[in-house]
């Protein structure tokens, strides 16, 4: 099977965030970036399917030059090739614009299966994979917690997460877009050998023109929503912060839980 995996690079959830000077996004200077969490699970699932079906895994990412590092890591983990949609024209897209661009890159080559993460840890639309599916005219499933290919690889049994700890099991025809939820497998670590091999693997740079895309339909121009500003929630409300070293803060907390909240 030839499988495409869409990978987004996002700020490390552990990183301290600062609002950028223009107030519209976080300041990316010195910000550590990582592969989006659910995308790591999507890649692992793709690698496992490719191992079973003697397939090929191609990773795609839209973003500035820094995303090459994320793609390189995917190659080290076992992906066969990478496509970097690197054109400035792709920048600033929402899920609608980004999904359109990814779908064009996928359609150009032809794939049997597309895996994405279910949600990005920065913008978090939870939508890009569904939009890719719409453009390709393929069925899709979101929050996928299990994938089992069936006879002849023409369909798959898919487990989809529902609310409150329930899962739905369904059959979907392939090709399809499956939006993978974190936790369905155990992503592998890169080996030294993998890291060495990654250096020799293909990383193609793809422009909007290569995909025959009109600049007005992609990136910020093709976006249907625009972020005006971002801000930390107002402080002042919320928890009473108990100060002091560990043991005195612990003492005071227990005291308050007993006397003020009366829960101990």
């Amino acid at each position, binding site marked *: 099977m030839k499988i495409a995996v869409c990978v987004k690079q996002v700020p490390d959830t552990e990183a301290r965030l600062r609002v950028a000077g223009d107030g519209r996004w976080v300041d990316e200077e010195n910000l550590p970036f990582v592969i989006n969490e659910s995308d790591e699970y999507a890649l692992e699932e793709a690698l496992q399917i490719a191992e079973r079906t003697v397939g090929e895994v191609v990773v795609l990412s839209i973003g500035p030059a820094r995303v090459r590092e994320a793609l390189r890591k995917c190659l080290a983990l076992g992906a066969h090739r990478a496509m970097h949609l690197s054109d400035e024209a792709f920048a600033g897209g929402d899920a609608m614009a980004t999904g359109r661009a990814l779908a064009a890159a996928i359609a150009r080559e032809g794939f049997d299966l597309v895996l994405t993460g279910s949600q990005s840890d920065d913008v978090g639309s939870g939508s890009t994979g569904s939009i890719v599916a719409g453009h390709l005219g393929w069925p899709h499933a979101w929050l996928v917690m299990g994938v089992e290919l069936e006879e002849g690889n023409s369909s798959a049994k898919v*487990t989809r997460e529902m609310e409150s*700890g329930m*899962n739905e*099991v369904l059959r979907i025809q392939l090709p399809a877009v499956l939006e993978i939820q974190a936790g369905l497998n155990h992503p592998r670590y890169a080996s030294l050998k993998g890291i060495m091999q990654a250096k020799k693997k293909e990383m193609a740079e793809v422009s909007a023109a290569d995909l025959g895309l009109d600049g007005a339909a992609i990136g910020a121009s093709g976006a249907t*929503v625009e972020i005006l500003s971002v801000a930390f*929630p107002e402080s002042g409300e919320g928890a009473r912060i108990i100060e002091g070293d*560990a043991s005195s803060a612990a003492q005071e*907390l227990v005291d308050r839980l007993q006397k003020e909240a009366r829960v101990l």
Partner: protein
Amino acid sequence: MSAKVWIVVQHREGHLHRMSREAIAGGQQLASLLGGTAEAVVLGHGVGPVAEELGGYDLAAVHVADAEALADYTPGGYVGVLAAALKDHAPTHVVLAHSYQNIEYMARLAQAVGGSLLPEATGFETDEEGVVWRRPVLGGKLQARVRAVGPAPLLVSFQSGVFGGSDAATGNAPRVELDASAAAPDREILGVEEVAGEHVDLSAAEIVVAVGRGIGDGDKLKIIEALAESLGAEIGASRPVIDNGWLPRDRQIGSSGQTIAPKLYIAIGISGAIQHLVGMKGASTVVAVNKDAEAPIFGVADYGIVGDLHEIVPALTEAIREAKAAAG
């Protein structure tokens, strides 16, 4: 152009989904802010009782698509019918609850009709240029103000708890049939299963000590166990702890885990993402321990300690043991 707000509801076993009542309230408020009308839409098979329930709200119409092909929810069934209906009726806004089912198909519907997409709204207001929406970004650490700049209709989903379901205005809404012939189911439902596990029922616990990714590693859980033991508490966890295999899945609290309302909830190394908060917002007293003073969990906690959990948790265990010993 005056606004026409469509509220597409979700239902189960003949009843409206709780979050859909909130979406009705939100859709009504949006319509009144924009000076337009609100209408509900329900899809399914044998949805008479739901349509009737919707008829009791203050809505200009209840559109009903009733067909066998819609008996089970599928994205292809819903998107097929709704894409055709949006073209026929041209609402300006389509409002949904931000539920797993709705998220799955709403983006695809936006794509199918060439509209605009705004998932997970947590509020809206107007300024001189129109509507400004709010939604969380970066796991809820930041709030964004967002404007829809693309073609109509705008599809927007409301996060749980933004509106009160009981705030939805009641009235008398006429039922209108919607053409369901474009339903094209694109999956076969094989069954529903409960997530495997030991079935710990955390909802019965009076005190829950919940641990998050901040613990760093599964073999560091001993300090959490000791704290839970000192309190006679159950242990719960955020999703990454489960995904990493540090605790079994039946300990997960949140939208895809358990929903609990203990007397005391202690969140340790948990950032406070909305998917976690919806599982524990019923707790009466919430304590958070986190090294990041800006973690959103402090916004919902009653008491907080900012610092390294590896120091604070053992100190807390010690303080509780002492207090219990003193109380005899």
